């Protein structure tokens, strides 16, 4: 079985029903998708399958044979961060970081599909992603900033714009 992961074709030997998550992490050593709840409830394992966000823990690898898989490793490099990675850094949108790669992949799909800076639309696109640090406000700030076309100076950090909405997204 073959998969293309971040542009590189990989041969896979895992059993056909193995969740894509474990194929990526354990067999291919692509470890940005996190094994959180492993039952579709947290969003931390989200990757793009042919450009669409998918829970890799819920996806049998046989169902994505031949597909293009994109993880956060495929978005940018440490020397050249992708806009969302810059925005998450600039807005302090990563706290412990566990949910961050899933959030970024879902946000990337949202933006790729023409998503706007509208906060409610961003919340709806990220509704299935849980941040146990409850840092939702800054995450929505970061996605909104990229949708707006902001550029980021990573030598300074943004002030929190909105300290009243402490409840964050649902």
């Amino acid at each position, binding site marked *: 079985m073959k998969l293309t992961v971040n542009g590189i074709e990989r041969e896979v030997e895992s*059993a*056909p*029903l*193995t*969740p894509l998550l474990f194929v990526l992490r354990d067999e291919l050593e692509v470890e940005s998708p996190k094994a959180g709840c*492993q*039952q*579709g*409830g947290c*969003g931390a394992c*989200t990757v793009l399958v042919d450009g*669409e*966000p*998918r*829970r890799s*823990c*819920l*996806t*049998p690898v*046989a*169902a994505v044979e031949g597909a293009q898989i994109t993880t956060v490793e495929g978005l940018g490099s440490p020397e050249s961060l992708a806009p969302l990675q810059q925005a998450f850094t600039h807005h302090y949108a990563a706290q412990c970081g566990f949910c961050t790669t899933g959030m970024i992949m*879902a946000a990337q799909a949202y933006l790729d599909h023409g998503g706007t800076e509208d906060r409610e639309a961003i919340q*709806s*696109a990220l*509704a*299935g992603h849980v941040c146990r640090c409850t840092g939702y406000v800054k995450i929505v700030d970061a996605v909104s900033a990229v949708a707006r076309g902001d550029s980021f100076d990573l030598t300074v950090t943004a002030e929190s714009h909105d300290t009243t909405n402490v409840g964050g997204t*649902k």
Partner: protein
Amino acid sequence: MSAAPEVLLPSSADEAVSLFGDGADVTVVGGGTIVLPELTYGRLKPTRALLLHRAGLAGISRNGSTVTVGATTSILDLSRERAPVGPCAANIADLEIRSQGTLAGNICAGEGPDAPRGDLQGPLLALGATVRSAGQGGTTTEPLEEFLPKRRSRLLLDVSFEEPAAGAFAALGRPHTHDYTALAVSAVRAADGSIRLAATGVGWWGTRLPSAEAAAGDPEAAGTAALADVTLHDDALASAWYRERTLPVLVRRALAQLEESA
């Protein structure tokens, strides 16, 4: 996962039917959203797994006023349909799950470990949908109501219904996008003017509300009458006490929506 199951990957509907056979020892995998966690946590050890993603069973087709929805059509695709199907599908889980979960998985899942599932049973019961399925005795078509008790032993192929004159969907809010809906009511005005109502969350699977339908001209009376059609229970989502108080409200809301769309 210990002993690896035999994995069946049909590339056509006919091949899927043939591999399913009489369904003995076959675990059907649609989108995987329900089966995969069962495998990961070792609660399910299939002998044979039938993966449907290449079987050509996805898609919504229209022939005159008849709508036919293939088994592996995604919940997301259904969320773009008219009420009651569209709003019900849009109210299921989150974007990623809706993209991956399928019609057949949702209908056939039925009860979960601690709460009802099968959100789409309600809208499709209200629409008077029929199910085409394969298994012992060959391929049959029957009303969804008759299919539901057999859903674990047959391979659902597609679901058909007549486009209604109007449709409505009213549900209790969910605390979080990943929670199942505790109670929902679907209403349909058919092309002949008759009104059909169905609920999910009042039993272990979707239920038509014939007493409420008979009283549909008076939404207040219909709401109260609906209580005669159901056996309420406590589960992890809500108590029978709460459901008894909210079912009449949802019936009234669904009928009011139907009225507005007239």
